[in-house]
């Protein structure tokens, strides 16, 4: 794969695409792949572009010659020779496209199976039992909701809207949906697969470098479909292990008589905890907030700061139409301040350090 890529790099079409890759946002654009799945897709897209370039060159050349050369001159009333057709030509433009298609057909079938690879435990026993799961193999259950993402880890904890994975190994995502169809897409890491309610399907991704990758919902799922983004946070293996351990720790309540403690009280009194769990304690109608302060974005898309957080809590419908969170418009400023302070204290990354 890498060998072919290095050859192709010198060719103009690739150069053009690399130039275009500069247009897109790093770790979002698929033209700058960060893992083997995205790399495979990119390489084969380039392959198909070369094959298709042959077709385009042939057709455009013939077209422009015909258009320039065979114009009728004014006053020319001669009737051109009425040609019925040509068997030889018909055979030519039937056989050559077939050959070109075979070049594309081989990697197509190979790739279909490459992406369909199942986790070793599932492949071995058909139905993967809990005990069979090898410790190093990661299968994350992904449930898509209107309009947020729930990531359940094999260790038993849950993350919302931002999924952490280790670098350099395949991570499997077991996709389903809680309401309507969604689609799980991380362009810089690989292809997409739909989250279909009532059905589970498996896709793998691998990030070769640590970093934060953009993820999006790619299937129309309602008015706020555009705002259903998520992030994939890739950590080095040892950092990832620490993160997993930190996520599993028992809940530490804020010290008494601090603003965070007041916030926690608001969190319970207002019923936030009924939908948003912290450290596994609480409901699951909304994203879990265990590591809320580590988030890149509020509600998947909005800039992370106290003002946005406040307007989100006061009127979520205004910011993300049709979402399921009730508004807390009448919350007193005092309570709001405490609540925000509490939410900002919910960091797992801090525990790791």
């Amino acid at each position, binding site marked *: 794969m890498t060998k072919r890529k290095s050859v192709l790099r010198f060719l103009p079409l690739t150069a053009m695409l690399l130039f275009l890759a500069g247009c897109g946002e790093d770790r979002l654009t698929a033209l700058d792949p960060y893992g083997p799945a995205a790399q495979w897709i990119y390489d084969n897209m380039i392959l198909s572009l070369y094959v298709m370039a042959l077709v385009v060159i042939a057709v455009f050349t013939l077209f422009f010659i015909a258009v320039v050369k065979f114009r009728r001159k004014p006053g020319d009333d001669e009737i051109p020779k009425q040609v019925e057709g040509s068997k030889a030509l018909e055979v030519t433009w039937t056989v050559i496209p077939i050959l070109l298609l075979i070049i594309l057909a081989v990697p197509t079938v190979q790739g279909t199976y490459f992406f369909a690879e199942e986790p070793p435990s599932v492949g071995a026993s058909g139905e993967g039992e809990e005990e069979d799961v090898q410790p190093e193999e990661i299968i994350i259950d992904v449930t898509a909701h209107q309009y947020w993402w729930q990531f359940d880890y094999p260790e038993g904890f849950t993350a919302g809207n931002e999924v952490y994975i280790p670098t350099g190994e395949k991570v499997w995502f077991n996709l389903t949906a809680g*309401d309507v169809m969604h689609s799980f897409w991380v362009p810089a890491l690989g292809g997409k697969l739909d989250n279909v309610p009532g059905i589970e399907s498996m896709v793998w991704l691998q990030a070769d470098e640590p970093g934060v990758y953009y993820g999006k919902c790619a299937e129309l799922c309602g008015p706020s479909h555009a705002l259903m983004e998520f992030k994939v946070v890739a950590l080095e293996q040892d950092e990832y292990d620490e993160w997993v351990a930190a996520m599993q720790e028992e809940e530490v309540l804020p010290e008494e008589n601090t603003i965070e403690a007041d916030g926690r009280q608001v969190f319970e009194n207002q019923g936030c905890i009924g939908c948003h769990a912290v450290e596994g304690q609480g409901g699951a109608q909304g994203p879990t907030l265990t590591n809320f302060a580590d988030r890149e974005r509020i509600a998947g898309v909005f800039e992370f700061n106290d003002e946005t957080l406040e307007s989100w809590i006061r009127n979520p419908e205004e910011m993300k139409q049709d979402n399921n969170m009730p508004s807390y418009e009448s919350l007193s400023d005092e309570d709001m301040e405490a609540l925000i302070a509490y939410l900002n204290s919910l960091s797992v990354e801090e525990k790791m350090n």
Partner: protein
Amino acid sequence: MATAAATQTKNKSVLWDWLTTVDHKKLAVLYLIAGTLFFVKAGVMAVLIRIQLMTAENDLISGQVFNELITMHGTIMLFLAATPLLFGFMNFAIPLQIGARDVALPFINALGFWIFFFGGLLLSMSWFFGGGADAGWTAYVPLSTREFTGSGMDFYALGLQVSGFGTLISGINFIVTIINMRAPGMTMMRMPLFCWTGLIMSILIVVAFTPLAAGLALLMLDRLFMGQFFIPDYGGNAILWAHIFWIFGHPEVYILIMPAFGIISEVVPAFSRKRLFGYSAMVFAVILIAFLSFMVWVHHMFTIGIGPITNSVFALATMTIAVPTGIKIFNWLFTMWGGKITFNTAMLCASSFVPTFVLGGITGVMLSMAPVDYLYHDTYFVVAHFHYVIIGGIVFGLIAGLHYWYPKMFGHMLNETLGKITFWLLYIGFHLTFFIQHILGLIGMQRRIYTYMSGQGLETMNMVSTIGSFVMSAAIILLVVNIVYSAFTSERITVRDPWDARTLEWSTPTPIPEYNFAQIPQVRSLDPWFYEKVHGDGKMKPSEPLKDIHMPNGSILPFLMALGLFIWGFGMVMINMDVPTVVTGIVIAVGFIMTFGTMVLHSKEDHGYYIPLERVKKIEKEVG
């Protein structure tokens, strides 16, 4: 046609004449008018969509309204704009091209038009009752079920059901016409390619619209009567709908592109002054494409998680479609090759179709590679791809056909200068709008999003795309201006054949008498009119003596029958509205009785009437 109709409609108003007409030429005009209205409506929606996407995090249009716009834009463009516009040309040209006096079933022809029209109207009513349909034109469940979407989807299910029924019976009518009504000597392999593609399109309609009707019925049962076909919580299956929809949806694409292929295959030979290169290969390719179009639907569902075996099989099947399509492209090129090409507006549109369609075709092949499609699927790459095929193929085909047949239909030409400006504006605007969308898809812009976040590198290209859509709008406005301007300023055409063309419709006098051909012509070759001009005396040989001509009676019943279906459909939608059950029941009953009552009325035999020989002679003298 005015003279002949005068005796029949002496005391009737113009409006009544058009409401009751069964003449294929008048129905063609009705189809064109209705199609244009829907086209403009959906076009305005497209511009609104582009304005909303012009800048990042734009809040001009809310997500809900945006979803209504994209859904109605797609649904209207495919079902209520492209289909009737193509039907308009088919209605006009096919009977003339095969040397017939009308279609086989003129009553059904009128009925098909009115049912389609009222179905479209029913769908459009949604705007006045809580907003348009909003689950995408594919209406994927469970989003399109009652739990997640409002009454717009009820109008979608019922409106498409009714209008699809109209399209279906029109399709049947075309099949019967093309098989039975050909003039003596007009063998299948002498038919113009437009008739061939019309025939294949109609067969596709019959086979593809039936699963759509079944699917819509199931969706309606789910939405109105608490059915459980598609709702996972009750044991329904969400993927089932996707299958049913795409078993219809993929052939639908070919239903639309086929007649456009046909128009190109008429215009290119006419203005290259050369017969179509490889006619039999073209016919073979059309049949093959139609056949293959039924075995590739899963390529719309590669990412739904259906497994590597299915994906591989359907990927390979999809690739094979490229072969017959390539055959067509090269045959068009070689029709121009060695010809004497005149570049008027019609030919500009028809010839530029070739490179544009190739660009849509190659992205089609790229999309067929299932694992790479995991990237393209549901992104702007796909949006760019199907607009290249639909605008680059169907819209350019339609505009070529409009300029080509306009003198025959309306007795005057469209202004060429305005026409050429229209073409260049449309051509440049189109590429500006859609080429860049390929790249937008690859750098991470998914489909059907009402906005995108700033800082994701998507701003510039979206702005370019929106500017392109303004240029395209200017072109369409200019086209409408041209139609009005030409109506007042263009010279009347009295010659039969202003283009020096090749097929039978150009052998009729202009304006065409109600009965088309005083004597049904004897066809001696492919391109019969060209053949007689070169090898004969420049006139078609008659295949029958001049005699009384049998014509069908006009009737208001098709209009009433369709109106009944509209009322029935509206009543069905009312089930989900906040109105008393009794009222709903009455509306449904009125519509039902109206439709079936008119059917009973129509069961009385109607033998039509005869235009006496003297009248025919008189008319022929006038127009000749």
